[in-house]
């Protein structure tokens, strides 16, 4: 019997994987992809609860999450390209112009 708890544990696992990716990888594109994994984990949670509570508002919110993820990916990749043209690197350790 698959309860909502199963879906929530899956979502927590996927979120943690995304978090691991953000914290440990140095390649900025992989970091952005890990953020997408985290957003997907949140979406799974929304849809699971929408199914349990039989309320379609969870799906509506998941649509908005996808919209925001698309906007963020586009602008994030634009920033990466602009940075790459200047500094020729995508290693986040070298993107430290404004660090003390």
């Amino acid at each position, binding site marked *: 019997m698959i309860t909502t708890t199963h*879906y929530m544990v899956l979502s927590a696992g996927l979120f943690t994987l995304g978090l*691991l990716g953000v914290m440990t990888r140095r390649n900025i594109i992989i970091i952005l992809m890990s953020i997408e994994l985290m957003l997907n984990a949140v979406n799974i949670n929304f849809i699971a609860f929408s199914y349990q509570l039989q309320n379609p508002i969870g799906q509506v919110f*998941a649509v908005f999450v996808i919209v925001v993820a698309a906007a963020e*990916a586009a602008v994030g990749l634009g920033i*990466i390209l602009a940075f790459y043209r200047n500094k020729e690197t995508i290693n986040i350790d070298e993107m430290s112009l404004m660090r003390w």
Partner: protein
Amino acid sequence: MVDAVAFYVLAALILGFGALVITAKSTVHSVLFLVADFLCVAALYVTLQAQFLAVIQVMVYAGGIVVLYLFVVMLVNLKRPPEVHSDPRRLGRLGVVMSVAVLVELVAIFALGWSKPEVTGGGGLSPKNVEQLGRLLYQDYLIPFEVASVLLLVAMIGAIVLAKREL
């Protein structure tokens, strides 16, 4: 029975592909595993009676956003050596510890007890999924819908301005 098998298989695939995304050596392989991950998540949505969201996930996420990632990876990968795993500040190990802590906390909260909310209104999920979502988006949630479209317009203009070359 069938839905239990479907859930476990899909969950294993989702978590497996997710792990491969963050650990693959080549960036293009990471992107491919991300696509596979999104397709499995879409399959999971179908089992949860969210058919419209499943096709939107495939169309927008797997078929749009990840294509964008693939293009940028190919543009950036052209002449660089593979990534050097230098870790001068030991953030990597700290990151692993933090992530495991977050995971343990979340699983404890979910599995051990959380007050089950009672079923609030909403009228139930109808099998005419698209019509129901359309009605909600255009009647009850029209303002967030319009704000989202303005957000997409802003993101489109921003991406073009950031990434274009000065010709």
